[in-house]
């Protein structure tokens, strides 16, 4: 795979959220505001790049028995440092995202890419792969957050686009879009749309239904 492909494949074709269905927890939790989604996207992409680069650099020294332990330690350290930076320089954002930044440690995309890419490839490839996957995740977050914040609140990044009905405008906001289930629906529709566009993403059925025994009409 060329290096360009390493970067572009995870954007849509092998998107971590819509194809591998990873990173769903944060995609549900923080996408009710576009601002938090953007910060989360940057945070996750940064963590992913740091962890992929670090793990790829030490991959030849890692005994396979303690492989996961070392990977998680590296990921958790990167996340903690990013969390501290946010609390220092973007206190507002750190407060809104609260626990979800620390939860990047358990985001399956990060460990998934460490295992699937960084353990087997050089640093250059691993960093490109991290960037691609980070941006693929960001893309989905941004789409979901745009829909949710606009329909749920009439705002985008806090700027009022639609005047609310109870404040004298015309827009009746829908609180469902601020709750986690709406992210499920939107991601579901996205998966549907992408798989209609790229039918090769459809999974094969796990089993074939057994035909019912034929009964003669009495």
């Amino acid at each position: 795979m060329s290096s360009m492909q390493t970067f572009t494949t995870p954007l849509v074709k092998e998107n971590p959220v819509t194809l591998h269905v990873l990173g769903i927890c944060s995609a549900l939790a923080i996408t009710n505001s576009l601002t938090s989604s953007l910060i989360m996207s940057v945070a996750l992409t940064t963590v992913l790049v740091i962890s992929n680069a670090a793990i790829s650099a030490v991959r030849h020294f890692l005994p396979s028995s303690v492989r996961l332990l070392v990977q998680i330690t590296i990921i958790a350290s990167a996340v903690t440092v990013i969390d501290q930076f946010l609390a220092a320089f973007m206190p507002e954002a750190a407060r809104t995202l609260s626990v979800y930044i620390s939860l990047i440690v358990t985001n399956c995309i990060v460990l998934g890419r460490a295992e699937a890419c960084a353990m087997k490839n050089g640093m250059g490839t691993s960093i490109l792969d991290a960037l691609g996957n980070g941006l693929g995740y960001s893309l989905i977050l941004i789409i979901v957050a745009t829909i949710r914040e606009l329909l749920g609140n009439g705002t985008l990044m806090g700027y009022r686009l639609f005047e609310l009905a109870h404040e004298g405008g015309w827009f009746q906001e829908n609180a469902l879009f601020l709750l986690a289930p709406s992210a499920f629906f939107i991601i579901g529709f996205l998966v549907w749309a992408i798989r209609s566009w790229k039918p090769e993403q459809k999974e094969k059925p796990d089993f074939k239904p057994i035909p019912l025994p034929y009964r003669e009409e009495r």
Partner: protein
Amino acid sequence: MSKDSPQRAVLVVLLTAVVCSSLVSAAVVVLRPIQLENQMLERSRNIMQLTGLLPPDRVIGDDEILDLYKSIDLRIINIDAASYDSGIDPGTFNQRRAQNDPELSVAIPTARDQARLGRRSRYALVYLVWNEDRLDRVILPVHGSGMWSMLYGYIALEPDLNTIAGMTFYEQNETPGLGDQITHDYWLEKWTGRQVYDDQGNPRFRISEGTVEPGSANAEFEVDALTGATVTANAVTALVHYWFGPHGYQPFLLALREQPPDRPAELKP
């Protein structure tokens, strides 16, 4: 040493632990002062919004906030004794820490515990705002259990110690879009001018069950309900009733009414 030998595994794990923990510790130590400054700034900003000292027409910068904050009279009060306590430094007092300290806190009798707190600090940091030599506002910290989370806020009273001058919730984790409407300005603005106590001196303020009819008997004691957030709204009513009741600030407010405080001479104008 082969790549998969146990010695090598231990070595690699130890090295990783040392390198990673040094990096994390360094980040925490270096960034800590900035984080503390942010917390201080955030708290000052919340207080300043209730003082009526901020210009309404523009957003003011951090330095100006901290400068204005110096003109506020910070006092530690002993809630149970209804008196000031000069033995505690307002700059370092932490009410949440005090609440969990058996020495500094008191259990709330179940019958009085409307806000479902369990314990409360014996002391509180209150803010007095002065206009020349006249007391302009009294700002009191309040908190109570909401639907999912603890609601933390400040409530500001006019000098009559009964009319609400403003309210803010600075920390909560209620349902987005429903319970978290308690932080929305358009709702909090409705608190301004409402009365806390009835003629007998009992807390009467509450969040209504619907829209408050202007001119009705309860209009001056009630604020409109929040759609879809009945539990949170009831929790807000409960916390006001607790903190303004006999186990809360009521004795202090009565004492304050009897004996108005003096403006400290050293306070910045």
